[in-house]
C-alpha cells in the first residue's frame, strides 16, 4: 500500500508542477485551477525529522457558471524529503474527490465519481453516483449509491456498499422537512444504517428553527438529536441550541467505527448539550461573540464551556482579535482556561499575521500545566497574477513538546478563466 500512495503523491506533485510550468492553458474557457505547494520542516515526538512537500491541487473544468457538464478534481500528495520515519505507513496522498457533474433545470444535478455526500445527516465519501432534483415545487430528493471510501482499509473493498438518500418537502421559504436514509455495508454485512429526520421553519420576526434527529437501525435507538434557533434581537443574533447523543447508537457503526470511538460505543453514556452563541456585531467597531455550552451526562459529572471572543478592526488594514474561554468540567482533569490573541495586517504587497494560543490546565498533563503556541506568517502577493508566496514559523511548548520550532513555506497559485 505505501507504494500505491507514494505513486499518488508523485502524481499529484507532478501535476502541480505541470500547472506551474504550463502556465495558463491556451484554450481554457471554464477552467479553475488552484495549486498549493507546501513545504514543512519539523521534528516529531519520537525525534524523527521530517521535511514533507505537499501538493494540494484542485481543478474545475467545464460549465462552472452555467448549467451543463463539468469535471471537478481535488486531491493531495506528500513526498518526505527527509525520508525518515515520521509518517510511518500513513497514506502519502489521496484523491479527495474526482467526479463529473451534470446540472440542468429544476435543480437537477447528477454526479458520477468520487465525491462527498453531506446530506440529511450523511457525511460520507463515496465512489459512485448521486442525483439531486426537485420533483415538484413542493418536493425534492437526493439519492446516492456506490462503494464507500472510508472502509477500504478494512478487508479491502469487496462487498462494501453505501447507498441512501433524502426526500424533502418544502413550501417555498417557509419550511423544509426531510426524511433520509443511509445504509453502509462492509464485506457484505451491515455496519451502519440510519433513518434521519430534518427540518427547518421560518417564524415571524426573522426567527428560524432547524434541526435533525438520527435513528440507528443497526442498534435500534436514537443516535442524535440536534436542534437550534436563530433569533435576531436588538441588532444581534442569538443561536440557542440543543444536542443529545447516545454514545452506543451514534458511535457503534461496526467496522466503520474509528479507533477512538470503539470504547465509547460500548458505553451506555448519553450526553445532552444546551447552549447558545450570541453574536453582537453592533458593539461599536468591535465584533463580539459570547458562547456558552453546558454538557450533562447520564453517568458522569457535567461540564460547561464559556467563552467570549472579539474582533476589532483597529484600522482599515489591521484586524486584532482574541478569545478567552473557560472549560469547567466535573473534575480537575477536565478543566482548562484558554486565551488566544491574533492579528491580521494587510500590507501593500501582501499581509502579515500573528497568532498566540495559551492554555492552562487545572490538572497536569505529563507533568505540564500549560501550553503555549506562537505563530507568525508573512504572505507576498507576487507580480505574477494570483501567485502567492507564504512563509510561517511556529513555536510550541506544551505537554507533548518541551520546545518545538516548525517552519512552513507555501506557493499558492490560482488560475481562472
Amino acid at each position, binding site marked *: 500500500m505505501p507504494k500505491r500512495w507514494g505513486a499518488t503523491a508523485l502524481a499529484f506533485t507532478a501535476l502541480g508542477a505541470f500547472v506551474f510550468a504550463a502556465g495558463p492553458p491556451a484554450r481554457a474557457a471554464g477552467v479553475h485551477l488552484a495549486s498549493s505547494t507546501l513545504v514543512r520542516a519539523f521534528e516529531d515526538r519520537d525525534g524523527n525529522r521530517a521535511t514533507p512537500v505537499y501538493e494540494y491541487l484542485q481543478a474545475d473544468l467545464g460549465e*462552472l457558471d452555467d448549467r451543463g457538464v463539468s469535471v471537478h478534481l481535488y486531491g493531495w500528495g506528500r513526498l518526505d524529503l527527509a525520508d525518515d520515519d515520521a509518517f510511518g505507513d500513513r497514506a502519502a496522498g*489521496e484523491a479527495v474527490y474526482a467526479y463529473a457533474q451534470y446540472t440542468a433545470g429544476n435543480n437537477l444535478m447528477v454526479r458520477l465519481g468520487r465525491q462527498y455526500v*453531506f446530506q440529511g445527516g450523511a457525511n460520507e*465519501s463515496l465512489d459512485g453516483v448521486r442525483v439531486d432534483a426537485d420533483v415538484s415545487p413542493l418536493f425534492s430528493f437526493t439519492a446516492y449509491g456506490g462503494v464507500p471510501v472510508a472502509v477500504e482499509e478494512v478487508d479491502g473493498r469487496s462487498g462494501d456498499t453505501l447507498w441512501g438518500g433524502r426526500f424533502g418537502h418544502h413550501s417555498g421559504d417557509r419550511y423544509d422537512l426531510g426524511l433520509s436514509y443511509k445504509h453502509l455495508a462492509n464485506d457484505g454485512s451491515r455496519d451502519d444504517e440510519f433513518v434521519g429526520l430534518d427540518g427547518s421553519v421560518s417564524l415571524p420576526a426573522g426567527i428560524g428553527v432547524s434541526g435533525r434527529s438520527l435513528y440507528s437501525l443497526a442498534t435500534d435507538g436514537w443516535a442524535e438529536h440536534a436542534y437550534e434557533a436563530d433569533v435576531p434581537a436588538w441588532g444581534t443574533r442569538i443561536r440557542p441550541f440543543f444536542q443529545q447523543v447516545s454514545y452506543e447508537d451514534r458511535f457503534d457503526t461496526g467496522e466503520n*467505527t*474509528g479507533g477512538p470511538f470503539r470504547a465509547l460505543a460500548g458505553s451506555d453514556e448519553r450526553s445532552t448539550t444546551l447552549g447558545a452563541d450570541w453574536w453582537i456585531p453592533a458593539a461599536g467597531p468591535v465584533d463580539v461573540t459570547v458562547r456558552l455550552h453546558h454538557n450533562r451526562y447520564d453517568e458522569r459529572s457535567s461540564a460547561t464551556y464559556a467563552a467570549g471572543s472579539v474582533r476589532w478592526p483597529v484600522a482599515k488594514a489591521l484586524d486584532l482579535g482574541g478569545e478567552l474561554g473557560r472549560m469547567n468540567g466535573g473534575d480537575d482533569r477536565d478543566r482548562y482556561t484558554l486565551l488566544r490573541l491574533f492579528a491580521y495586517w494587510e500590507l501593500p504587497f501582501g499581509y502579515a499575521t500573528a497568532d498566540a494560543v495559551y492554555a492552562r490546565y487545572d490538572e497536569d498533563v505529563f507533568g505540564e500545566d500549560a501550553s503555549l503556541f506562537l505563530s507568525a506568517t508573512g504572505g507576498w502577493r507576487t507580480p505574477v497574477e494570483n501567485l502567492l508566496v507564504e512563509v510561517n514559523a511556529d513555536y510550541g511548548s506544551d505537554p507533548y513538546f518541551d520546545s518545538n520550532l516548525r517552519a512552513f513555506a507555501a506557493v499558492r497559485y490560482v488560475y481562472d478563466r
Partner: protein
Amino acid sequence: MTPKRPLFWSGLAAVAVAAVLVGCAALHSSYELPAAHPDELEPGPPVCSDCHEPDGGGVVYARFDHTPAFAAGAHRLAAGQREAVCSLCHQPSMCNGCHADAVELKPSTRDPGGTRRAYPHRGDYLTRHRIDGRVDPAPCFRCHGNPKASASCRPCHGR
C-alpha cells in the same frame, strides 16, 4: 444467497426510482437556483441577508449568513438541507478543507495566515483534545469517526 445478489437488486431498484423521480423533475418548474452567484462578492464573510430578503425568493438566506456561529457549527444543518445554496459560491473543496477522510494537515496548519478564520484545533490541540473529547466526542466523531479519517488518532488510540 451471495452478498452480491441483494446489491444488484437494490441497485436496480435505486436506479429505477431515480429514473422516475428525474422524469418527474423534468415535468415541472419551481424556484431554481443559478449555477453560480451572479455577482462577485466583497472580501470577507458575507451576510447573505444584507442583499437578499432574509426569508424570500425560495431560500431562507438568513440561514446562510456567515456569522461567527455559522462558521463555528451552524452551517452543518443548513448545508445538510440546502447544499445547493453553498454551491453558489463554493466548490466542495471548501467543505473538504476541514471535512474529509484524509487531508492530513489540519486547516490551521495548511493556512497559518488565516488567523481571522474559525479554524478548529489551533495551537496545541493535541493536549486540549483529551479534554474536549471527553466532554463532547460527537463533534470529533463527525470528522474522525471512520477508519480512514481516524488515521491521525491511530498512533495513540489504535485501530
